[in-house]
């Protein structure tokens, strides 16, 4: 399938927050650089980091105007130089700071993408590379939780909080309240 020259995307135009996030129809479709894969976005994940970026308070985040979003899932349509183990046609979920995931196409580093679990849709896989990894890293290597301990999860209704709740329960460490 041919790749168009332009695409629909959400562009953040100021540091005034999501109120200045605008849909544009003529964003150039990115060309994947070395080590990157270009995917046709089927679903993009929204994260609290997107809010921080829209206010300019995300360390190392993009400066406006920029295409927003950093988590996307979809089908690889082409790969940049030096990409091994990922071919066009594969369906992946991945992250890329400043990649512009809120768009019809986005280029992600291949090393921060993984194949969709068998049988999962793009939408169902959102959160694996952001929320689940964050929750697991916080609980195990950094938090060193053990069975019987109590875990306090602030923002438990969010996607990371839900992941932390599920994995805490699995570790028999949580008393959820």
């Amino acid at each position, binding site marked *: 399938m041919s790749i168009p020259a332009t695409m629909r995307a959400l562009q953040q135009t100021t540091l005034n927050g999501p109120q200045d996030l605008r*849909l544009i129809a003529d964003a150039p479709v990115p060309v994947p650089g070395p080590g990157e894969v270009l995917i046709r*976005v089927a*679903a993009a994940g929204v994260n609290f980091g997107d809010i921080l970026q829209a206010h300019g308070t995300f360390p190392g985040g993009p400066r406006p105007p920029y295409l927003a979003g950093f988590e996307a899932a979809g089908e690889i349509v082409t790969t940049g130089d030096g990409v091994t183990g990922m071919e066009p046609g594969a369906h992946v979920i991945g992250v890329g700071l400043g990649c512009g995931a809120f768009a019809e196409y986005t280029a992600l580093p291949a090393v921060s993408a993984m194949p969709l679990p068998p049988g999962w849709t793009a*939408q169902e896989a959102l959160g*694996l*590379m952001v929320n689940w990894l964050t929750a697991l890293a916080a609980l195990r290597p950094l938090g060193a939780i053990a069975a019987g301990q109590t875990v306090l999860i602030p923002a438990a209704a969010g996607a990371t909080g839900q992941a932390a709740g599920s994995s805490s329960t699995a570790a028999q460490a949580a008393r959820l309240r």
Partner: protein
Amino acid sequence: MTNCELIYKHQVHVIGLNIGVLMRSAPQVAGAMMAEMAALMAAGVITPGRPAGYELADGPKALAELEARATVGKLALLP
């Protein structure tokens, strides 16, 4: 903050985490997390998500609702 202060004056510590920074600075930890994630999927702890879907054009609305703490769980934009 010195080691002495950490040991004798501030014995309760807060550890921060940004997963993107962790993946770059400690890839071996990130690799272990990927392996644990695969194990948790196989064990049925991690199951397919059911995010609330928004059209791409409604992205500003989705972000505003997230910022207003009016949402639960994952949000998805569908181009």
